[in-house]
């Protein structure tokens, strides 16, 4: 299998964003990191995603909101091919990372997942020490630099270093829920991804821990392209630059209703359904 390095920038993927949806002039300069074009997805025979075309830009936080069952998580998991693990699932259309179709046969999912990190809904640290949790990714990916430094810098970037530095041999499971989630973020950062996919990272956390993660997302967006799925509209409003609104269609599949700058979505959405959702009339 050819080992593709995902740093080529194919022009085809750098589609200029539709200026109509936003007045921002810098829009055209934004580099598209993730995109889907007319993507459909099926779990066995049940259609889960319908015709989704969406772009996510470099060093921005894109939030995906929508009611339960609208396919937000399914959509997110397309990018690092986690849906491969689900038997009899099928994807149609283009899912691109830096202009390369991730489902192309030349793309190795293992290499792809190093470049696209993921943080899950429920914190899932390994039953290992804090150190080993962070060192896991670098080890399996053959990192040959100074592991101690990498572990420290990853924990620092995930804003958890000060809380754990005294005992890195402590089990990751001994931490609180919020700390566990930050440990998982540190673990994801340790393999130097370009993108962080976050699947409702705060839904299992208390408000204080949620605030810390949200602050962290803000800081990380300087360096990483972040896509966050959330149930919490306030959270989307707080952390994201752009927001995509998904909804369940009549056939039970999820579809994109609109995507725009977060401010516009929450103040002046183009679609009535978006407005109905964000004002709490349904969902």
């Amino acid at each position, binding site marked *: 299998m050819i080992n593709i390095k995902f740093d080529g920038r194919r022009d085809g993927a750098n589609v200029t964003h539709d200026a109509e949806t936003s007045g921002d002039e810098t829009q055209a300069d934004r580099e598209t990191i993730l995109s889907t074009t007319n993507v459909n997805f099926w779990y066995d025979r049940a259609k889960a995603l319908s015709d989704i075309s969406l772009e996510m830009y470099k060093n921005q936080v894109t939030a995906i909101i929508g009611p339960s069952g609208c396919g937000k998580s399914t959509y997110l998991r397309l990018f690092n091919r*986690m849906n491969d*693990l689900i038997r009899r699932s099928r994807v149609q259309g283009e899912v691109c990372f830096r202009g390369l179709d991730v489902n192309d046969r030349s793309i190795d999912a293992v290499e792809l997942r190093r470049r696209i*990190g*993921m943080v*899950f809904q429920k914190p899932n640290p*390994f*039953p290992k020490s804090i150190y080993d949790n962070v060192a*896991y990714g670098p080890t399996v990916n053959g990192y040959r630099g100074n592991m101690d430094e990498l572990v420290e810098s990853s924990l620092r970037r995930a804003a958890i270093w000060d809380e754990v530095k005294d005992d890195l041999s402590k089990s990751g499971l001994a931490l609180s829920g919020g700390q566990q989630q930050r440990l998982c973020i540190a673990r994801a950062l340790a393999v130097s991804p370009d993108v962080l996919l976050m699947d409702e990272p705060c839904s299992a956390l208390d408000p204080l821990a949620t605030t810390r993660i949200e602050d962290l997302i803000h800081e990380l967006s300087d360096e990483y392209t972040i896509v966050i799925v959330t149930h919490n509209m306030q959270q989307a409003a707080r952390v994201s630059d752009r927001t995509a609104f998904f909804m369940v269609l009549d056939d039970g599949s999820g579809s994109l209703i609109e995507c725009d700058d977060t401010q516009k979505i929450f103040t002046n959405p183009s679609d009535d359904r978006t407005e109905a959702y964000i004002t709490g009339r349904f969902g």
Partner: protein
Amino acid sequence: MISLRPPERQWNSKISQRKRSGVVFLLGTAISTSLGIIVLAFLLVDVLTDGLQEIDIEFLTSFPSRFPENAGLRSALLGSLWLLVMTAFISFPLGVASAIYLEEYAPESKLKRFIQLNIANLAGVPSVVYGLLGLGMFVRTFGLGRSILAGSMTMSLLILPIIIVASREALRAVPDSLREGALALGASKWQMVRRTVLPAAIPGILTGTILALARAVGETAPLITIGALTYIAFDPSGPMDLFTVLPIQIFNWVSLPQKGFHSLAAGGIIVLLVVLFAANLTAVVMRYRFERKID
């Protein structure tokens, strides 16, 4: 507004009756438990009073003999230990590998379900049947003779289904979130299995394996079938040697008419119990140590 609550007279709480049935159930379970314990204690006391005076260094280090006062179970004890170790070396890798394949790799298919069903059934096949298989295949066809190797292979067949089922349960108990976490970091499938799934499942796998091995140590029928000898007056020194094991030696002593051999049998039972207890203790200690390492 009409009240949706049912009228009070429709309730009949029968508090005292409900409490009474609770007490009856409690008594029933307590009696069942004590029955088991009492019978076990009675057997233990009986064996200990008969056999304890037989246990000394001489008993452990002497070969069997026609005379009860000279007889010991040296060769049977060594044979059992040989069998235990060799069976472990054969069955553990095979069983765990099969479980990993079935649980982590094999795609869902009718064939897989068929294999699973058969493994579960094999765990229930009488051990003498395995003995016949071992006799036909290992002793005769493979020409291994009545050796420790043939015996260990037969025993491995007997306990493989148990090891596979226990290992699969242990693997299945590892949450998928750990698998996803590993894959999402760019681990390959094998790295995920090797570094995440196996370490989390190993306490359960070890417990199942050691309990299965304990069963193998206590088994008699398959070894009698393949012809493990009763009278062995030398130390087994390699896998191809003839051998006997503790349960066969005990069975043999019990079947002799002289009184002296009967207390020797009781002594043999005590030694066998100690071996089994040691195996189970090992399982508990290993489980504890691995679990502590993980939490």
